[in-house]
């Protein structure tokens, strides 16, 4: 067995990475087609506030991040629903608010430290046994929700007004998507990092879309691309001793470029 599998932290990173690699594009595909791509980044920045608060209070940072991220997701959807501001502006207000609060809290906590750096950029050694349990549990829950609501989520994503005309409560399904995204982002933070998590949700989906196949196939291809990126990224991160988030996203973008080049002939 190669040395890489001898370490518990690596095994945890691989297990957590595999779960996240499946979840990220499954939720990401709905974000991409609904033009919510940057929402993931916003929620990630906001959840840093939760991490900072958790560190300040000396509690489990991901717990705080989960609360803040989900609350922000609900808040953005509500603000968007009032039509008081553009949808994009609603997202931006939360983005800055989250970042500002995180900076203030970190100042109180004594500035940037190594722990925070790991949450920003991801690290293979960050995933604790607690993290893995949380990722496995919530990951299974999220996949179940998507499986059960797949036909409604597809319908609302493709044609929201027809879905409403047919009696579906579209705003509830929109809320489901953003809340799931909020949870997935927090779970992915230890490995991919807050600054790059959006990429894991979006890049594999955008890559899969280049093949021009059905929604279902796009979904399965994006999962495969995501899994390949995360696994290759983790291995590279280990051997080259570099931040895992960066290597995962660079791998995903590399796959995008190859696919884009191959499928360009079809266009």
């Amino acid at each position, binding site marked *: 067995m190669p040395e890489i599998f001898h370490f518990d932290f690596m095994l945890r990173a691989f297990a957590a990475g595999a779960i996240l690699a499946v979840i990220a594009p499954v939720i990401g595909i709905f974000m991409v*087609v609904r033009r919510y791509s940057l929402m993931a980044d916003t929620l990630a920045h906001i959840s840093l506030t939760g991490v900072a608060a958790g560190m300040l209070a000396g509690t489990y940072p991901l717990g705080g991040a989960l609360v803040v991220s989900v609350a922000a997701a609900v808040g953005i959807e509500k603000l968007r629903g009032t039509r008081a501001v553009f949808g994009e502006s609603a997202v931006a207000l939360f983005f800055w608010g989250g970042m500002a609060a995180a900076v203030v809290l970190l100042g109180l906590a004594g500035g940037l430290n190594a722990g925070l750096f790991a949450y920003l950029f991801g690290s293979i050694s960050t995933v604790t046994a607690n993290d893995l349990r949380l990722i496995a549990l919530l990951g299974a829950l999220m996949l179940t929700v998507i499986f*059960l*609501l797949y*036909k*409604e989520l*597809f*319908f609302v994503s*493709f*044609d929201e*007004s*027809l*879905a*409403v*005309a*047919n*009696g*579906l409560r579209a705003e509830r399904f929109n809320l489901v998507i953003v809340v799931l995204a909020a949870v997935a982002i927090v779970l992915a933070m230890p490995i991919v990092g807050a600054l790059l998590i959006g990429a894991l949700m979006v890049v594999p989906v955008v890559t*899969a*879309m280049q093949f*021009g*196949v*059905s*929604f*279902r196939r*796009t979904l399965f291809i994006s999962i495969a691309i995501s899994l390949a990126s995360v696994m290759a990224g983790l291995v590279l991160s280990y051997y080259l001793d570099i931040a895992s988030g960066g290597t995962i996203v660079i791998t995903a973008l590399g796959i995008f470029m190859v696919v884009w080049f191959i499928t360009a002939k079809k266009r």
Partner: protein
Amino acid sequence: MPINSAYCIEADGLTFAFDQNIAVEDVSFKIAMGQYVGLIGPNGGGKTTLIKLILGLLTPTSGSIRLFGEPARAFKRRFLIGYVPQSVSQSDYYFPAASHEIVRSGRTARVGLFRRFTKADNAAIEQAMATAGVADLKDRLIGTLSGGQRQRVFIARALAGEPQALILDEPAVGVDTASKERFYEFLHDLNKNSGITILFVTHDLGVIANEVETVLCLNTRLLCHSDPGAFTEERLIDIAYGGTVSPVDHRH
């Protein structure tokens, strides 16, 4: 649950105002089950607003709508009204969805929350694709279809829910003349053979004169609600587009 009402759509004193603008004012009409109705009127005359009110996408400022005899607000089985939007909008051009997935989505509400598609559902979906003539397009992505093909996919989607009524918004826009004729034949057959109530918005006054049983002309207020035989094409144009003409003068 069988439908006992003689009327598919009933509007009573329907008004919709947005800020200070009145889009639809005091509109009343009844569409019987199985009727074939055309809705005409100038741009900005409230046609789309009226459709949205019927579909429940807008809530009336005053007045009421009944669907299949029940108050629209309380009506749960909205999927009984199939809706075919204009095919000219290309906002979903890049959406990664195959035609069969889009048609299937039209049955979502009928299947219901947390339920899976059964064999009967899949059969109805295939039937809808066959009826609309899109069975051979099932694996094509929506963005790769022509205007006419998209139109038929959207009709198949509406039919997949096995509706009692079909509302079509400018169905012939972006469709060439030959396909247009086949399309109206298709609607006619659907109405006659399947007994589906049809309400469609159109600018095509020739179609109004030749095809429909009843015509609604809307310019904020309902200017007429009559059988098209009562009108020559010129009079329809007068009524719907000439603001100075009193509709009462043209009534037989």
